[in-house]
């Protein structure tokens, strides 16, 4: 028993008998607690209060006041604890305010905290007194301890006293610029509080929000977006510049912030991107796994291609891992994001995660099932494979059962209806009668939706009519009524059967239903109907209103069809109805009488009575209760309640034309500006334009936005360097971030980024010098740069590696494609300019239909690709390019000799570019030449073997003139084996079997890394994964350049800067499985050298070793 439990015990006991009080104290003493002298005092006061329970409260408070005013900390604390106990119980303690507020400056942190609790609770009631405490908070706002600053701001902003609004405003502004991200986070919270206290401050608060949105701390992101949503959700323009940052930070934001950010970004995306849902275009569900690739493909085929904005893709990609969150709210938020934003064929990835949530708490199940119910109406296919997860258990709560039933009904189709009906049979027998009734309705819905089973269902329902439980029978009748209406065929038997049941059925709705059926189909049961009416006439007065109405109805209909037998009965019933208590029934009776009984007043209307009453009626549609819930955004409170909640924001519809995309580009900050002109020199006059055009083109470059995010990231890292004040925190955060979310390689390379961040400036200076030196020859230029800009390249590329790692499988994941793609992208504007002269670089809308990355018009794509090569030679921004350039003339291989090819000859080479089509493919360029004397038509690729081979074919070349040649690019997924890819090259007349056998070195792609990383990774790949051999080097290969040249000619790897002279290191990854391949060469005294290859792919290693050995041995 500790002291807090003691005091809690006291407060709860106050109302109880004094005897009980004593026992507690005795037991406390038995526990040998060192009780302070004040206990006796307390005891006195408590026993005193017990003796006069009426004003016990007051007396108790007097006592508390005394304790608060005493000089002992422990007494004060004790008093505060009891006061908090009072607050928690909802009892008033406001008269203690003056005594409490004095302690606001206490040194004891717990006492202080409790005083804060009290202040926040009562300041609104005692505004004047509350002002006494303000100066203490103002002082605390300047405290060196960030925790104290933050909590002072929290309390200050929580005191709802209008007078202090200016002070709060000032405090918020100051805190928003605080060095501690925790304080900044608190200020984001304070914004909302101030806004609710005084909405007039909106404009000023928006400024603070704008500032905080730029914050790069993950701690702040969630809170500021929350403030944004509360204060100015319509100021979408504030988000633009921060959009990519938010997307990239998302994984690291705390879970609650994730929910808020995701829902805000959903809304944002709906206003900024065009709809990915193609009108009329149905996708193959099984196409989904191509992911980004499929988009390219359909672009080729469809008339008006839809190209997803790379930012749109970025959002989808970065939210996907969150489906694995343990927080159900996050999973739901991602699910709704995909539902509202993703192309239709991608939505189904959320299914599994949603089904997983069904195992969570009852309340979670409830919400998730509601959302699944809405989803399952539109997209049956999504949940159909999981149908068994929706089977009802007898232990489920009623509302869970009904929702599951709803979903099962939505999912029913021809294929699974028999299983579902079998389940339903079990449910009908449930002891939970409300649930059984709901099941019957569900059966009815299945029967109307699936015509194959209508009869089965109907028969089943008729069987239920003999059920012992009345509720079941009644529900069956109601459902049968609806079913019969949809199938007005020969169901006379069923109607007769129901008529027989009529006497036993007491549930009004069921009785009314039978009566209606009798009336509607009275011609089918001409003998029974009048008899039923006769019975009704007897009991009319005792019936429920709804039954009475239907009786009147039946009477009228029978009067019209069979007036001979029923005239008197009808008149009797109409008379009864005329004097009924219920005005509805009186009205109805009067109306019917005028309508059917011909008299002088009724006039023309009675002629039409038959047509009015016995008109064929449209069958009711049995719809899901969730039918129109999709008007609300999924996962919202409004969706759950099916009504618009306060503060609900409609999800906007997609814009027809996407707004300017360049608004999301982030200005390039200092360090990059220096880098830009170097690249810019190649083609573009202005570096600024370059950057914009970069991003514009990106959207064609499906999924290759790593350049955008990369540059953004590097800008962010560099700006953190600028704002030196917080750089320490930031960088430590950075490295933690990667270590927490990135894989093996990047965890190391991140280190280099933070290093390079710090000495970036230094390097830049040296680089400039190098640049000057390296001008003269292209060769030395590239070599210089092999060492020079690596630091910088690795800073940007390793930054982006954490992004590219977040890519979906099909996207590029390793470091190297990022910079390379950048060069491709850069190449594009030029191509575009060539092909379409009037395209201005900044005009986005015009630009989008321009060349897509898939080589649609093949001529364009050749020139594009050849341009890319040209560029990559001159364009030196990373180690990757070094490899391409130093390699010099490409090795070209013969694919088809013109003799065997009847005039068609083909050659191929490996351009060593990352493949555009799929990252796991190796890019191959094929040069087709027509050396015959007639034009060749329809050159394309035919059968492939092995069948599993994944080849991205070039588009059919319609016509190749004699003597002309064309370069086309293909992508082949060799799956990291040197097995040849066999396929047929076809023309209109002929087919030629050809094969491409890749050298092992072509199955790699360069990987940038630092020496430390290299050694670290090498350390992990020891033993079985290491292959080494001593080789003899040709004397010509003694220099480092020569070694580089030879190695790079054999293998597409990247050089790793080495600090030791006798060591050369190269890093690469296999294209298909991204396994690391590390090559190191240690030169010994003589011409010998130790060549070591570390990789998991031991077969590749030995082959590579052989090739390298050969290459290095020859001059």
């Amino acid at each position, binding site marked *: 028993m500790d002291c807090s439990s003691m005091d*809690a015990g006291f407060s709860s006991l106050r109302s109880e008998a004094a005897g009980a009080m004593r026992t507690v104290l005795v037991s406390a003493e038995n526990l040998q607690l060192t009780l302070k002298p004040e206990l006796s005092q307390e005891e006195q006061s408590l026993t005193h209060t017990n003796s006069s329970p009426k004003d016990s409260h007051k007396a108790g408070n007097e006592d508390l006041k005394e304790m608060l005013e005493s000089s002992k900390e422990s007494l004060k604390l004790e008093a505060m604890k009891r006061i908090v106990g009072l607050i928690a119980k909802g009892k008033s303690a406001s008269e203690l305010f003056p005594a409490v507020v004095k302690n606001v400056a206490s040194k004891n942190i717990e006492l202080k905290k409790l005083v804060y609790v009290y202040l926040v609770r009562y300041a609104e009631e005692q505004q004047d007194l509350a002002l006494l405490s303000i100066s203490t908070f103002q002082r605390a706002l300047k405290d060196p301890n960030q925790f104290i600053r933050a909590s002072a701001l929290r309390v200050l902003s929580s005191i709802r006293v209008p007078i202090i609004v200016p002070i709060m405003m000032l405090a918020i502004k100051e805190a928003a610029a605080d060095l501690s991200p925790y304080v900044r986070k608190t200020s984001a*919270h304070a914004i909302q509080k101030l806004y609710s206290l005084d909405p007039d401050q909106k404009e000023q608060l928006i400024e603070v929000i704008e500032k905080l949105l730029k914050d790069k701390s993950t701690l702040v992101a969630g809170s500021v977006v929350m403030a944004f949503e509360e204060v100015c959700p319509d100021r979408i323009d504030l988000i633009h510049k921060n959009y990519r940052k938010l997307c990239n930070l998302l994984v690291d934001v705390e879970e609650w912030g994730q929910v808020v950010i995701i829902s805000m970004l959903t809304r944002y995306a709906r206003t900024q991107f065009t709809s990915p849902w193609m009108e009329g275009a149905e996708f193959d569900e099984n196409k989904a796994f191509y992911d980004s690739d499929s988009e390219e493909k359909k672009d080729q085929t469809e008339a008006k291609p839809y190209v997803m904005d790379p930012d749109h893709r970025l959002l989808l990609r970065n939210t996907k891992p969150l489906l694995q969150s343990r927080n159900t709210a996050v999973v739901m938020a991602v699910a709704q994001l995909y539902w509202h934003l993703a192309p239709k064929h991608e939505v189904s990835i959320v299914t599994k995660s949603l089904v997983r949530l069904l195992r969570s708490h009852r309340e*979670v199940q409830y919400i998730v099932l509601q959302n699944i119910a809405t989803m399952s109406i539109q997209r049956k296919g999504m949940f159909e494979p999981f149908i068994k997860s929706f089977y009802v258990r007898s232990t489920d709560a*009623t509302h869970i059962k009904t929702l599951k039933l709803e979903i099962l009904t939505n999912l029913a189709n021809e294929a699974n209806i028999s299983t579902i009906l079998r389940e339903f049979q079990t449910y009908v027998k449930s002891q939970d009668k409300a649930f059984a009734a709901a099941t019957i309705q569900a059966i009815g819905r299945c029967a109307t939706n699936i015509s194959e089973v209508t009869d089965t269902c109907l028969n089943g329902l008729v069987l239920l009519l003999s059920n012992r439980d009345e509720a079941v029978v009644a529900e069956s009748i109601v459902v049968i009524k609806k079913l019969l209406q949809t199938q007005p065929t020969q169901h006379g038997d069923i109607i007769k059967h129901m008529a027989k049941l009529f006497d036993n059925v007491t549930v009004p709705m069921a009785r009314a239903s039978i009566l209606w059926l009798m009336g509607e189909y009275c011609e089918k049961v001409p003998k029974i109907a009048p008899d039923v009416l006769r019975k009704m006439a007897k009991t009319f007065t005792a019936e429920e209103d709804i039954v009475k109405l239907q009786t009147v109805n039946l009477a009228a209909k029978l009067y019209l069809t069979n007036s001979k037998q029923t005239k008197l009965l009808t008149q009797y019933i109409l008379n009864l109805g005329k004097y009924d208590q219920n005005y509805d029934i009186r009205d109805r009776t009067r109306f019917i009488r005028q309508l059917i009984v011909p008299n002088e007043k009724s006039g023309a209307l009675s002629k039409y009575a038959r047509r009015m009453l016995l008109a064929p009626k449209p069958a009711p549609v049995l719809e899901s209760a969730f039918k129109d819930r999709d008007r609300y955004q999924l996962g919202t409170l409004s969706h759950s309640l099916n009504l618009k909640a306060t503060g609900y924001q409609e999800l906007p519809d997609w814009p027809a034309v996407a707004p300017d995309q360049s608004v999301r580009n982030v200005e390039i900050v200092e360090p990059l500006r220096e880098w830009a002109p170097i690249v810019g020199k190649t083609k573009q006059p202005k570096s600024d334009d370059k950057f914009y055009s970069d991003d514009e083109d990106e959207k064609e470059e499906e999924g290759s936005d790593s350049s955008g995010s990369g540059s953004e990231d590097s800008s962010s890292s560099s700006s953190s360097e600028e704002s030196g004040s917080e750089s320490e925190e930031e960088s430590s955060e950075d490295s933690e971030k990667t270590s927490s*979310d990135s894989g093996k390689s990047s965890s190391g390379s991140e280190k280099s980024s933070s290093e390079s961040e710090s000495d970036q400036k230094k390097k830049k200076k040296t680089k400039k010098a190098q640049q000057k030196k390296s001008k003269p020859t292209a060769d030395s230029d590239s070599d210089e740069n092999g060492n020079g800009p690596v630091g910088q390249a690795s800073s940007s590329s390793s930054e982006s590696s954490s992004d590219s790692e977040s890519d979906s499988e099909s996207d590029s994941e390793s470091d190297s494609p990022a910079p390379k793609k950048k060069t491709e992208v850069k190449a594009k504007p030029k191509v575009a300019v060539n092909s379409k002269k009037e395209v201005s670089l900044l005009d986005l809308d015009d630009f989008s239909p321009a060349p897509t990355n898939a080589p649609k018009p093949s001529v364009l794509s050749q020139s594009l690709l050849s341009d890319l090569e040209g560029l990559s030679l001159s364009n030196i921004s990373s180690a990757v390019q070094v490899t391409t350039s130093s390699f010099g003339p490409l090795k070209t291989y013969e694919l088809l000799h013109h003799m065997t090819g009847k005039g068609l000859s083909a050659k191929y080479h490996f351009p060593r570019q990352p493949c555009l089509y799929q990252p796991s493919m190796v890019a191959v360029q094929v040069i087709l030449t027509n050396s015959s004397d007639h034009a060749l038509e329809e050159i394309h690729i035919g059968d492939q073997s092995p069948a599993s081979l994944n080849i991205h074919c070039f588009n059919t070349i319609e016509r190749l003139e004699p003597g002309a040649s064309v370069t086309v690019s293909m992508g082949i997924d060799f799956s990291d084996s040197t097995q040849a890819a066999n396929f047929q090259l076809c023309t209109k007349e002929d087919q030629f079997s050809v094969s491409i056998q890749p050298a092992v070195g072509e199955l790699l792609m360069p990987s940038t890394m630092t020496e430390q990383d290299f050694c670290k990774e090498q350390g992990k790949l020891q033993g079985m994964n290491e292959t080494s051999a001593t080789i003899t080097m040709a004397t010509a290969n003694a220099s480092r350049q020569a070694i580089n040249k030879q190695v790079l000619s054999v293998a597409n790897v990247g050089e790793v800067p080495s600090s030791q002279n006798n060591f050369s290191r190269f890093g690469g990854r296999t294209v298909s499985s991204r396994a690391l391949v590390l090559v190191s060469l240690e030169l010994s005294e003589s011409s010998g050298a130790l060549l070591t290859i570390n990789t998991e792919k031991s077969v590749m290693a030995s082959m590579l070793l052989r090739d390298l050995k050969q290459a290095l041995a020859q001059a």
Partner: protein
Amino acid sequence: MIHSLFLINHLGDIFLEKHWKSVISRSVCDYFFEAREKAVDPENVPPVLQTPHHYLISIYRGKLFFLSVIQTEVPPLFVIEFLHRVADTFQDYFGECSESVITDNLVIVYELLEEMLDNGFPLATESNVLKEMIRPPNILRSVVNTLTGGSNVGETLPQGQLSNIPWRRAGVKYANNEAYFDVTEEIDAIVDKSGTTVSAEIQGVIEACVKLSGMPDLTMSFMNPRLLDDVSFHPCVRFRRWESERVLSFIPPDGNFTLMTYHISSQNLVAIPVYVKQSINFFEAGSCGRLDITIGPKQTMGKTVEDLKVTIHMPKAVLNANLTATQGNYTYDCTTKMLVWDIGKLNPQKLPNLRGSLSMQTGVPNPEENPSLNIDLKIQQLAISGLKVSRLDMYGEKYKPFKGVKYVTKAGKFQVRT
């Protein structure tokens, strides 16, 4: 977001209220009580309710209602998840989440709630962070505090709050470094009358108790990671690493936590460990019924089935049961109509059997449906899906930790229809 919180016991008394914005009168709960009344069973209260000016979102945990008052649109799961997190925190702090424990620790509870939400938005929900700010109660500390005037409240901002790994506190030190992992799998199944499996799923969870000094970086790999097609992780797990290599790589929180949960839904992978032969009949004449249940092992992978228990929720008409069990003993609660047969260890040589007669209320029609059987069981040293941890490696620290993995299979929602 969350405006106020009320804690309500099963009798309908509000015993704690906390407001994060202006005070809302507790009369708002009347709407809830109305719904509570209508639902009869507390389990059936709809979690989301609407009142003229507010929205009420509630959860039911440990016979307590956590009722939150909302004023504007907010994702309901956000609130529900948070409320469960509050309940979890109480559990973590006080060992249980009940009315008596909460009223006993009212001040700590209040301080916790104050830290967990700021202006209705979650601030710190990580148990490690909270424990640094507000120390959990224990006898020794309270004695020391009364003597020295110390407090339960931390004075500095916990490191975790600022770092990107908020789940781990800095400067952890242990004399014995150990890491234990419990792989628990629960079988959810519906077996129909004829003994065929209607649906079966495995819900797996890996609970960890990690007491390692410093900043250890752990890697756990599985023999057969392909089994796991749907998983959710503690935030500490590096998702990329899982995607690419199917290993769990993480810097663990200190103490107990749930590392991952997984879900195996494909039915052919799910082994059903026991079969049940049952016949329950209610006779029209003589107002009595007959019950005969036998349980035998089916796919137990050579392990012993323990803690076997059968629970039957009898129809209202059943007054009493007069049964004989060959093994274990049974109880029948006349008020809740629960028949519980506690069997214990399943002996394959001598199958446990429960048979006898049920006395029924006269004059009431016989129940339509036979009650379904809920089975509880436990199999030690076995993960029924076949999942196996192949190794656990630690990087970043020098010492050699003691490692252990324990497997257990339980019946989750295992239901046999009759």
